[in-house]
């Protein structure tokens, strides 16, 4: 970038955020490669926000590609399909793609290599279908938000329909450094993405769609512009490359000027955000009848021999992908997702899930290990924060144990984007402070709720006991009174009887 361009870029960029070196090329320019079928796939039951899927296949069963193997449970959930045809060999625990390395349940599938797909119903013209019917088809295909949030797409579409949204924002920001899977989708499948956007607009009743793409992806912008040209309601909006432009609130603000109120969803201001890869998945689900069983994953990082994007079935182990791309050196750190918000992988024997945008293998030079220094109050974090928080003050409060004060400063609004920790000259792990405090606060509120519930139950119990004693006493008194009354009545009756007898006898006597 030339000096003048750099200066113009500085002028156009929003005041928030950071501009890290994006490291997207050469991986983004390498043509898309297709991974040969791995020996075994591990398809997790929890790949989305909400309830995990419930397996409906038995070990030993032969399944076809795209066949339902786990059905959704509860309102917010998504079905899971077989990524290819083969045999179910196990249903058991495997390491989750999470720094903890804790296990979670996955269905192991041994591919037979034939890739026989189930025959699926494909509607002739999706635009003549009822929006509800389209939403149902998207739900059945197990499509979830592929930008990383993995929120079930059908739930979002239904929400859009309910809240009478006007604008669908298509997120092609991909602001995380190193990642380029969305870039690749837009370059290679622009027409499919635009078709997916139109289907989503139809099922939500949106009048217009704004496609926001960061201006560091000129090829994607050109391809998408060509594909969107016939449709006046789909507008392409290049946005300045600035992290975290791909965060929904920031993109909404940049494209529409609207601010999502902090206690509301985007739908409440008439906007829904969906990722370009999600649009592509919706297109494949509706037009090709193909459920979400594969995705494009970026393999990048200094330890990778041939960085690039690879189309891989869901459930592929990170080792298989890394072996395919080749490793130059033993990775010093493995990440799932981008370097700003991604999670460390405990090892490479972890499956990719629907929300996996990339696997990064960093070498020694790429990982930073600066010791934490004292805060010099430079205010860089305050300027970088896209939410307008005061990270330095919140961290100081958390450090001092004043979690309540940190909460009062807007801790709950923090999106843990990592801008503050990225920019900090003292290398303070600010995000770690905030994540810790959020966890601590939610634990506290859970404890509080539990205590309140216990207290309420105890109070109710003592009240009940008191009431019961009182009722018993009343009943006893009543019984006593009754008995007394009965006795009195008996006595009275006996008296009357005797009197009557007496009268009778006297009468008898008299009559006698």
């Amino acid at each position, binding site marked *: 970038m030339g000096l003048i361009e750099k200066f113009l870029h500085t002028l156009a960029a929003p005041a928030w955020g*950071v501009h890290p070196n994006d490291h997207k090329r050469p991986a983004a320019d390498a043509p898309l490669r297709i991974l040969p079928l791995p020996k075994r796939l591990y398809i997790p039951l929890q790949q989305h926000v909400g309830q995990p899927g419930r397996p409906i296949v038995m070990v030993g069963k032969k399944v076809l590609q795209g066949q339902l193997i786990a059905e959704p449970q509860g309102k917010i959930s998504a079905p899971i399909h077989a990524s290819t045809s083969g045999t179910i060999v196990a249903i058991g625990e495997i390491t989750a793609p999470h*720094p*903890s390395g804790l296990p979670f349940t996955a269905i192991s599938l041994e591919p037979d290599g034939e890739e026989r797909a189930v025959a699926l119903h494909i509607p002739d013209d999706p635009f003549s279908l009822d929006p509800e019917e389209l939403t149902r088809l998207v739900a059945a295909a197990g499509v979830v938000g592929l930008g990383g949030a993995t929120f079930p797409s059908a739930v979002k579409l239904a929400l859009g329909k309910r809240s009478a949204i*006007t604008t669908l924002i298509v997120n092609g920001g991909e602001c995380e*450094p190193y990642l380029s899977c969305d870039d690749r989708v837009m370059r290679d499948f622009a027409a499919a993405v635009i078709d997916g956007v139109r289907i989503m607009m139809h099922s939500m009743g949106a009048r217009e769609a704004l496609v926001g793409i960061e201006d560091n992806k000129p090829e994607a912008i050109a391809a998408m512009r060509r594909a969107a040209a016939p449709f006046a309601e789909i507008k392409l909006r290049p946005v300045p490359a600035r992290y975290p432009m791909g965060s929904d*609130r920031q993109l909404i*603000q940049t494209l*529409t*000027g*609207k*601010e*999502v*109120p*902090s206690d*509301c969803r985007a739908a*409440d*201001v008439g906007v829904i955000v969906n990722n370009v890869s999600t649009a592509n998945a919706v297109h494949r689900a509706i037009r090709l009848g193909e459920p979400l069983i594969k995705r494009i994953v970026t393999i990048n990082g200094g330890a990778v021999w041939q960085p690039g994007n690879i189309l891989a079935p869901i459930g592929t182990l990170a080792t298989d992908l890394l072996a395919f791309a080749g490793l130059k050196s033993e990775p010093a*750190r493995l*990440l799932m997702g981008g*370097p*700003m*918000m*991604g*999670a*460390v992988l*405990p090892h490479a024997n972890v499956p990719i899930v629907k929300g996996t945008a990339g696997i990064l293998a*960093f070498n020694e030079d*790429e*990982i*930073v290990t*600066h010791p934490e*220094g004292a*805060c*010099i*109050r*430079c*205010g*860089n974090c*305050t*300027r970088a924060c*896209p*939410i*307008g*928080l*005061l990270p330095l*003050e919140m961290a100081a409060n958390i450090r001092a144990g004043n979690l309540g004060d940190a909460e009062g*400063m*807007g801790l709950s*609004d923090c999106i*843990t984007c*990592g801008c503050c*920790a*990225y*920019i*900090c*000259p*003292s*290398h303070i*792990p600010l995000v*770690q402070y905030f994540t810790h405090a959020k966890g601590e606060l939610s634990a506290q509120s859970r404890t509080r709720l539990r205590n309140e519930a216990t207290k309420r139950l105890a109070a109710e119990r003592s009240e009940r006991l008191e009431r019961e004693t009182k009722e018993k006493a009343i009943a006893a008194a009543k019984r006593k009174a009754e008995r007394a009354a009965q006795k009195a009545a008996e006595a009275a009756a006996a008296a009357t009887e005797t009197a009557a007898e007496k009268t009778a006898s006297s009468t008898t006597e008299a009559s006698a």
Partner: protein
Amino acid sequence: MNTTQLFAPPPTAPHTQSGNSVSRLMLTVVAALLPATLYGFWLYGWPSIFLWLITILFALLGEALCLKLINRQAIPTLLDGSALLTGWLLAISLPPWSPWWVGAVGGLFATMLAKQVFGGLGYNLFNPAMVARVFLLISFPVQMTIWIAPLPITAAAAPGFHEGLLIALNGIPKLDAVSSATLLGFAKTEYSRGIDLMHSLAAASAPANSLLGARAGSLGETAAWLIGAGGLMLLFMRVITWHIPVAMLAGLALPAAIAHSINPAHYLDVSSHLLSGGAMLGAFFIATDYVTSPNTKIGQLIFGAGCGFITYVIRTWGGYPEGVAFAVLLMNAMTPVIDRYIRPRILGRNWRGAPLDPATQKALS
């Protein structure tokens, strides 16, 4: 299995960082000060170089001593450049031919009592260099107000290396021959003698108000244009933002302009105020100190305006001819209050912190 790996928490996001660091920031500020400092050396000769060296050495020594007392490694902290910057700022705010012990006591005071006692870098309430300068001014008023007429190092009458060393160690031999008055000091003294500014400034003996810095004053602060250029460099490199410097200069210039237009015989004009004393140095390098200034834009505007205004008040009606150091310290004391009440607006919330109304946002388009 090695135990460090067992107990170390997994590294968390972000996994990348900007190349910024505290020492880089401090050294950038030092680099921005370098031109003005070198120019000051040229104007005031060898005695000023020795004073500068001694002040910085003792500032570093004070920091090292304190770290030693609390059993911490001195070298990493010294390398962060903050003590160097503190010593440097103090040195260039001193009268250029001050005796060596003024610099030594000031340097020690700055890093020990004004900084390390509070807990070190990031914890001090007041700007260490300014605390030390005010301490010196109050304790040694004579030494701290001996100003030297500029005598370029190349001039024949200028003290050489050896002579300069003697001046720094033993004091100035023929004071009357070299001393001069600062513009602010001169105006104040003359006015108190009953001579108004129209006459006093027109006199031949009046000190010049020079943009080039060829006037009496502190070691590094007379070359207002070089200080300003250094400040612009910091702005361009995004080490500082414009809020504090602009607000401070405006806070000084506005009352000066109003008062001067009402009574030019009593009140100095705007350019004299802006180019004299430590106004430029204060606006770009002293008031912008991260640790002791507010961390929101609006807070910084208030802080800067306060520094400028208090400077003007002290210069015009106070007992001292110059007031930048006092003004900055007074506003330093206000910083926690400003930070408590001035908070940025959180996205999706109003200024009071309540969530925005979705209906009005929905209506926007």
